[in-house]
């Protein structure tokens, strides 16, 4: 291995995983080459309508990341490109990247779309799943980055006959089109490679009994996403593509191309249950009439965080029907309907007709990715997924090459994002010596001093395609804004958030000498930072800006009242214009950054996280409340893939103890916390104080102590963990009958969540018993078997090996009784429809994973981080920020976040390291500066603000006889200001004067 490593990483695939990994790496000191085969970054997310379980608009939550990634100085976005070869060794690879000719120069293209209007060739639009047409010159989707067109060489007439066409060339004012462009091959030096090429949807036409492609109105779930999407082929209007009729009855068929060994897709695709429920719920919302929705399924696998509640709500509140069955055939019915023939659990054959049937197609690896992996010598599993090496989360068989996202196995967005950050974390650890060697720093033009200038406001009103302009009369709003005080420019933008609009805004700032900017578009929560960046690039302080929301809070909520919505939009614009006129530049506050880390929890997650950050070169303090490291893993013996957990654990503990960058504190808890990101001081129970810049919470969870099924009364009733120890000790080698009961303490009214791992764990246990004593009878009493992903193979194996699965329902739980010879379990079998009595030697309870409530509540207060209803820690965003808290500088991983298996915990621990590194890499902490300010002359030092401040950021100074604000701690909430009777406190960026100015616009 060479001594000098390269401080850059090649990220293959620019879906959400690629974008997240790129951002994490670029923010923590590494240069990124982001290689994407399509003409735009974004992957599958832009094509999805809403995302579960938050129902956030997929595009809306993604687009800020697209923009951040697209404009990041240290991310080299290479679209229409692919990795064709890789040589070298970990730390020093040479990557050959081929960039196919786009035939449009992205640097010149303004994305205006004139070319596409002129292009005579209509092609099925892949982005819309072929439900609509695009042209041969096209942009992948409206908000695409780069916001540039590309030519589909295979469809363009000019490529067939140079004289045949050329209309686009004439239409393009920017002279961006060049049919002579050639493919390029570049050689890049990179230290590591992260593979995240994503997935392909299963081709449903391969299973002819579903009638896809033959029976009209049988569509795939991805097609349905596009139908639901406001940016889709029907503008979000729920209709059947075949005859454009509004369906009144829709069915979803689960496991199409999943859990199907005959078709070599034996695995579970993990995401389909949730996306189908979501589609059903959203479809009901989109439908004007009462839409009947039914989901035909085998097991409902809503195992993720907040999923079970979503499922329950869909069932109980939204009235989605769930039909547990086996579908045999889909045939054409009358009037374009689809007839489903299926069998219920009891074997009875049923028929039902639907206006439309959605096939919940599974995920499979992308063909090109498989080929590439084979070429690079990357090992794949039997399904050609690049499954990560056991207990690594993201490692491939090749060091320095990592895998994340759906290519490593079917998974949803948060897990994909987690893995992406984890891969970034591993790459950061590998390349730490080269950190910062290849990155560039962004330089902004000097800030214009606007003090004393006459207000010159520019107003930009966004059409958001038709999202706003379809309801609000945008030209009318633009004209209205022209008359408002201080406004010198008022204009409209088709997409204000697009790259070219940003450029135009910058030009307008220069041309019209603007010193205030108002954009009327969507939510400041998602887009304000992006526009503020535009201001900075134009040399204006980013706080001389106001974003008013005429989409989410106007056009979208007043769709039937265009005139009134227009009036409201005008008022909102006026309020923003009035507010921005009084805006003053706000300067960020810079503070020193402590680069040490505190990891709370010495389980596998905490240790993995600590180790990664230590390898990155940071000093880590690892605090464990027990006397020994290891956490709950000390009770595990067999990994879900057969790993030797104890061996792994001992090795991990050993690594921790050997690492000079890690200081371990055992038998300690957190007693007090002061400070904030970059400057925490945490006091341990023995009084020791640790100063650190970043906190990682990895406090784990516990096994639920059952109250039911005679647990604690009969010594033969055990939890799975207890059983596992007994198996390892050989105590069960002579057993004849074992009953494992699922969902003990999970999925009930007290703990409505699924504990996620117990199904797999029980099956693993059953197989272990069978392995040691093949003649033993093992029964698993379950509600849904949730062996997601490749764990489905275990389920298949268990059934093959004779493990008996009996389903029970929540309202008819198994009954465990002491009888003379031992234990009797009575359960009602849904296949037979009558009670079954099982006499058993041992009962294993799949006991829930429960959070340490008091401990979590304590830490929640100390670090000002929230808990969810189940008392697990609640991340900043369930979808896209799975290991972050909204409190800066605090991260989490492992079971403290929610139930997960060891593999997933390891991945999450690395992800938290990857994310923490983005903070640790900074030389200074920069606080936005929108803090409270005290006018000493007005202050009467009454101390009300001091008492009321939740951030403890303001204090009365005895000498000054006035309150003083600690800007670093101040969150700018304004509680002090509103409780200050003397009017001595104002809040930067949201002053009393500004609010009054808004109110005066009424």
């Amino acid at each position, binding site marked *: 291995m060479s001594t000098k490593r390269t401080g850059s990483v090649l990220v293959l695939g620019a879906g959400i995983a690629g974008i997240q990994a790129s951002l994490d790496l670029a923010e923590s000191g590494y240069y990124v080459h982001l290689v994407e085969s399509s003409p735009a970054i974004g992957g599958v997310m832009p094509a999805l309508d809403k995302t579960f379980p938050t129902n956030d608009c997929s595009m809306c939550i993604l687009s800020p990341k697209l923009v951040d990634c697209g404009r990041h100085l240290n991310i080299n976005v290479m679209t229409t490109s692919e990795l064709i070869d890789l040589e070298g060794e970990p730390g020093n690879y040479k990557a050959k990247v081929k960039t196919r000719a786009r035939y449009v120069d992205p640097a010149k293209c303004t994305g205006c779309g004139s070319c596409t209007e002129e292009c005579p060739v209509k092609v099925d639009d892949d982005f819309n799943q072929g439900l609509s047409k695009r042209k041969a010159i096209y942009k992948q989707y409206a908000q695409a980055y780069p916001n540039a067109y590309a030519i589909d060489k295979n469809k363009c007439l000019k490529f067939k006959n140079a004289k045949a066409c050329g209309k686009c060339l004439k239409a393009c004012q920017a002279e961006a089109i060049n049919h002579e462009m050639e493919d390029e091959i570049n050689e890049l030096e990179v230290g590591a490679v992260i593979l995240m090429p994503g997935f392909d949807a299963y081709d449903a036409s391969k299973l002819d009994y579903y009638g896809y492609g033959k029976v009209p109105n049988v569509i795939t779930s991805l097609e349905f996403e596009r139908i639901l999407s406001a940016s889709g082929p029907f503008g979000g209007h729920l209709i059947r593509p075949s005859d454009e009729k509004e369906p009144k009855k829709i069915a979803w068929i689960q496991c199409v191309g999943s859990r199907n060994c005959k078709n070599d897709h034996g695995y579970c695709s993990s995401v389909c249950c949730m996306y189908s429920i979501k589609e059903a719920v959203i479809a009901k919302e989109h439908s004007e009439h009462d839409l009947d929705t039914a989901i035909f399924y085998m097991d409902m696998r809503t195992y993720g965080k907040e999923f079970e509640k979503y499922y329950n709500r869909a069932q109980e509140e939204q009235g989605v029907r769930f039909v547990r069955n086996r579908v045999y055939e889909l045939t054409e019915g009358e009037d374009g309907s689809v007839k489903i023939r299926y069998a219920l659990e009891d074997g009875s054959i049923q028929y039902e007709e639907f206006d439309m049937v959605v096939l919940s197609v599974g995920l499979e690896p992308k063909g090109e990715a498989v080929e590439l992996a084979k070429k690079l010598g990357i090992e794949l599993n039997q399904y050609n997924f690049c499954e990560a090496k056991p207990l690594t989360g993201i490692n491939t068989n090749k060091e320095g090459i990592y895998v994340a996202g759906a290519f490593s196995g079917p998974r949803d967005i948060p897990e994909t994002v987690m893995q992406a950050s984890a891969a970034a974390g591993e790459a950061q650890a590998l390349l730490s010596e080269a950190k910062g060697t290849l990155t560039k720093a962004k330089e902004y033009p000097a800030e214009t001093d606007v003090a004393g200038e006459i207000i010159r406001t520019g107003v930009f009103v966004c059409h958001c395609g038709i999202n706003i302009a379809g309801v609000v009369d945008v030209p009318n709003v633009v004209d209205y804004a022209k*008359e408002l*005080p201080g406004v010198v420019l008022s204009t409209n933008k088709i997409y204000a958030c697009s790259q070219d609009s940003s450029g135009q805004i910058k030009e307008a700032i220069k041309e019209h000498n603007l010193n205030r900017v108002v954009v009327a578009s969507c939510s400041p929560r998602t887009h304000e930072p992006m526009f503020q960046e535009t201001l900075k690039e134009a040399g204006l302080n980013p706080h001389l800006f106001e974003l008013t929301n005429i989409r989410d809070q106007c056009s979208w909520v007043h769709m039937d009242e265009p005139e009134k919505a227009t009036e409201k939009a005008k008022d909102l614009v006026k309020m923003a214009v*009035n507010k921005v006129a009084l805006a003053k530049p706000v300067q960020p506050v810079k503070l020193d950054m402590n680069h040490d880390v505190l990891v709370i929890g010495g389980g596998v997650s905490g240790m993995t996280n600590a180790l990664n950050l230590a390898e990155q070169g940071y000093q880590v303090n690892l605090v464990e409340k027990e006397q020994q490291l290891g956490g709950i893993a000390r009770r595990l013996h067999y990994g879900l893939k057969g790993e030797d957990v104890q061996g792994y654990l001992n090795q991990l503990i050993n690594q921790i103890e050997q690492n000079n960058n890690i200081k371990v504190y055992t038998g300690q808890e957190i007693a007090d916390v002061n400070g904030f990101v970059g400057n925490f001081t945490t006091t341990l129970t023995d009084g020791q104080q640790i100063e650190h810049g970043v906190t990682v919470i990895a406090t784990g969870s516990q096994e639920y102590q059952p109250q039911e099924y005679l647990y604690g009364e009969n010594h033969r009733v055990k939890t799975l963990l207890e059983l596992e120890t007994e198996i390892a000790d050989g105590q069960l080698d002579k057993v004849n009958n074992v009953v494992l009961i699922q969902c003990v303490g999970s999925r009930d009214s007290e703990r409505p969540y699924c504990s996620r791992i117990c199904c797999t764990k029980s099956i693993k246990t059953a197989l272990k018993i069978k392995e040691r004593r093949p003649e033993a009878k093992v029964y698993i009493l379950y509600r849904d078997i949730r062996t997601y992903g490749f764990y489905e193979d275990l389920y298949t194996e268990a059934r093959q090996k004779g493990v008996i699965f009996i389903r029970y329902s929540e309202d008819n739980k198994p009954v465990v009784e002491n009888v003379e010879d031992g234990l009797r379990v009575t359960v009602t079998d849904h296949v037979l429809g009558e009670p079954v009595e099982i006499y058993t030697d041992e009962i294993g309870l799949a006991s829930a994973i429960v959070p340490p409530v008091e401990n979590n509540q304590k830490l929640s207060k100390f670090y000002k981080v929230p808990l969810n209803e189940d008392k697990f820690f609640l991340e900043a965003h369930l979808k896209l920020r799975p290991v972050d808290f909204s409190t800066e500088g605090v991260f989490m991983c492992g079971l403290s976040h929610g139930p997960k298996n060891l593999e997933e915990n390891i991945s999450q621990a690395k992800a938290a390291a990857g994310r923490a590194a983005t903070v640790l890499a900074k030389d200074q902490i920069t606080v936005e500066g929108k803090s409270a300010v005290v006018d000493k002359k007005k202050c009467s030092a009454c101390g009300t603000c001091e008492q009321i401040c939740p951030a403890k950021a303001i204090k009365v100074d005895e000498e000054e006889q006035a309150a003083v604000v600690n800007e670093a701690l101040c969150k700018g909430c304004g509680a002090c200001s509103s409780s200050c009777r003397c009017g001595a406190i104002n809040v930067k960026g949201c002053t009393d004067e500004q609010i009054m100015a808004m109110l005066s*616009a009424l």
Partner: protein
Amino acid sequence: MIINKSEIAGLLDNLVKEYRVYAPVQKDGIVTFEQINEGTQAKPGATSKKPPKEILFPQSEELFNYQVDSQGLRMEDKIDDTKSVAFGVRPCDAKSMMLLDNVFHNDEYEDVYYTTRRKNTLIISVGCNQPASTCFCTSVGSSPFDTDGSDVLLTDIGDSYLAEAITEQGKEFLCKLNLPASDDQAKTKAEETKKQAQLTSEVDTTGIKEKLDDMFDHPYWESLYEKCLGCGACTYLCPTCHCFDIADEAKDCAGCRVRNWDSCMFPLFTLHGSGHNPRTSGKERWRQRAMHKFNYFVERYNASACVGCGRCIKNCPVNLDIRQVIADIKAQPLE
């Protein structure tokens, strides 16, 4: 001329048709000068809580409106030239109007808002048969039947008033009313009434102007203001106080310029835009009040800016008595 008390209401009813009529009105136990619509509303002979100076110089007055839009700036003056009658003014309050004339209409300045109203307002006073214990008009150059500032003076002679025209306008006005002429008996009764109106309160103001000339830096001011709360009750209820403040009340590009009474007792009084205030505490403000009334005003207009109505004495929340202040000033030794 004679006005029978029983005919007052009818008389006022007639006046209301032609004039805007102000008269003392009692509401909720408090007498204020208000525009009346019917004669029965009036309570002549009552002394108002707030002096009638606001008829000429309202507490809050819109001077002009303005608007800026694409057509430029437009302004609209708000000058009030309605013919008015103030009925039932006390002689001290009428006198105060004469003092105010000095301020609002002099060689250097004419306040068009005030003078327009003044020109169009007829003052009909009612003399004081029974001055209150807080009255000290005679100590400051006035009296219960002072005619200064009035156009017509009424004297309560039991069932009726004796009306005397003081000015030409008063004479014309009385002529128009077609009232019976006053007989000798009434005249005699009026004379007696005037004589009987004795004040119980007196304060010696002789030489106070000269005394104050030397007292600007006197330590007396240090203690004077100590119990003062700094409210504006005394100044707002004073018939001669006339300080005002101008404020723009704007909403977007339209607004209005408003003139409001100010009070030297307020911390905001004479506060500069810079934040500096030459009168930082109650001490300077109280000195200003005393000086203005008994020194500066005397120097400028040859009369003290106090008519001895006693309102400030009655209404001070902490019983800070101006008579005592005058006495104290007189008693202070000079260096």
